[in-house]
């Protein structure tokens, strides 16, 4: 399995997580702030995989945490907080993606030089890739990014997006085909 690009800063201790979640349920703002600190990177990764832009992902993360805060009384401390939050953030990102009728592709201001490739080709690939990603449905984009970029398994993606594992596989297949098709002429393929 591919290693995740953004691992959590430290593996959360399940015991203390439970305590934090319980304290947050009792109304402790400090406990909830600590949960935000521990989980915001992973939440961003999930939201970013689903959202078309970085800004949408930020909005989804904020909305997801807000929903989680408002639903704390429904959280069962015997389950992992991260998994529960992940589903809420994924739902928030999917809702946001559906609400966005016109999506703006991300402005690519940062240039990463690749010593093994022609920068012009690299820029073209990126431009085409952004355009190709925009043609995918939010679940397709989420699956290809979560699987190929973040290294999530199909089972994990299924749980996160609340779809059967087979559906996650199908989304991945369709997304890869769509991306390859869009990039085919760049590679001189028929």
């Amino acid at each position: 399995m591919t290693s995740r690009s953004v691992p959590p800063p430290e593996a959360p201790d399940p015991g203390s997580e439970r305590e934090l979640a319980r304290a947050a349920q009792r109304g402790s703002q400090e406990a909830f702030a600590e949960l935000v600190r521990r989980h915001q990177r992973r939440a961003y990764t999930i939201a970013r995989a689903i959202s078309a832009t970085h800004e949408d992902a930020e909005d989804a993360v904020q909305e997801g945490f807000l929903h989680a805060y408002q639903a704390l009384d429904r959280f069962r401390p015997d389950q992992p907080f991260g998994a529960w939050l992940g589903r809420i953030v994924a739902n928030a990102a999917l809702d946001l993606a559906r609400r966005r009728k016109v999506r703006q592709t991300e402005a690519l201001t940062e240039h990463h030089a690749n010593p093994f490739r022609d920068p012009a080709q690299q820029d073209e690939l990126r431009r085409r890739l952004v355009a190709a990603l925009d043609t995918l449905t939010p679940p397709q984009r989420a699956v290809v990014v979560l699987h190929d970029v973040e290294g999530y398994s199909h089972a994990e993606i299924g749980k996160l997006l609340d779809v059967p594992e087979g559906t996650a596989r199908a989304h991945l297949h369709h997304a890869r085909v769509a991306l390859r098709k869009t990039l085919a002429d760049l590679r001189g393929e028929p």
Partner: protein
Amino acid sequence: MSIEHRIGPEGRDDDVTRELRRLYAAPPEDAYWLALEARILAAVAGGAAPAPEAWWAPLERWSRVGAIVAAAALCLAGAGVWRAREMREVSALQAAMLHPNAPSAQLAAVAGREPDNDAVLRDVLTP
């Protein structure tokens, strides 16, 4: 223009995957995460407070204990009422036996469950 096309072992396109990783990389700066954390907490503070615990939730938690305590209290209260009534009846009966010419109202008190008509009739018939 064409670029090298490499397909990974799982059907993953290496060029695409590499570029996707760049596109989707989370911001590395700590300052960014501090700012996002502050934004989230501000939204939480400015938004609704956590849904207050439903008013019936504590009742649900304590329902079993409450039901047992309520049942016990009801039993105790019932026993107390029964005992007090019994005491009243006994003392009224004793008073009637000690003073046979006492007003028939005392007998009526003893026979508290009798209809008023019976008490009135007894009152009339008593010499």
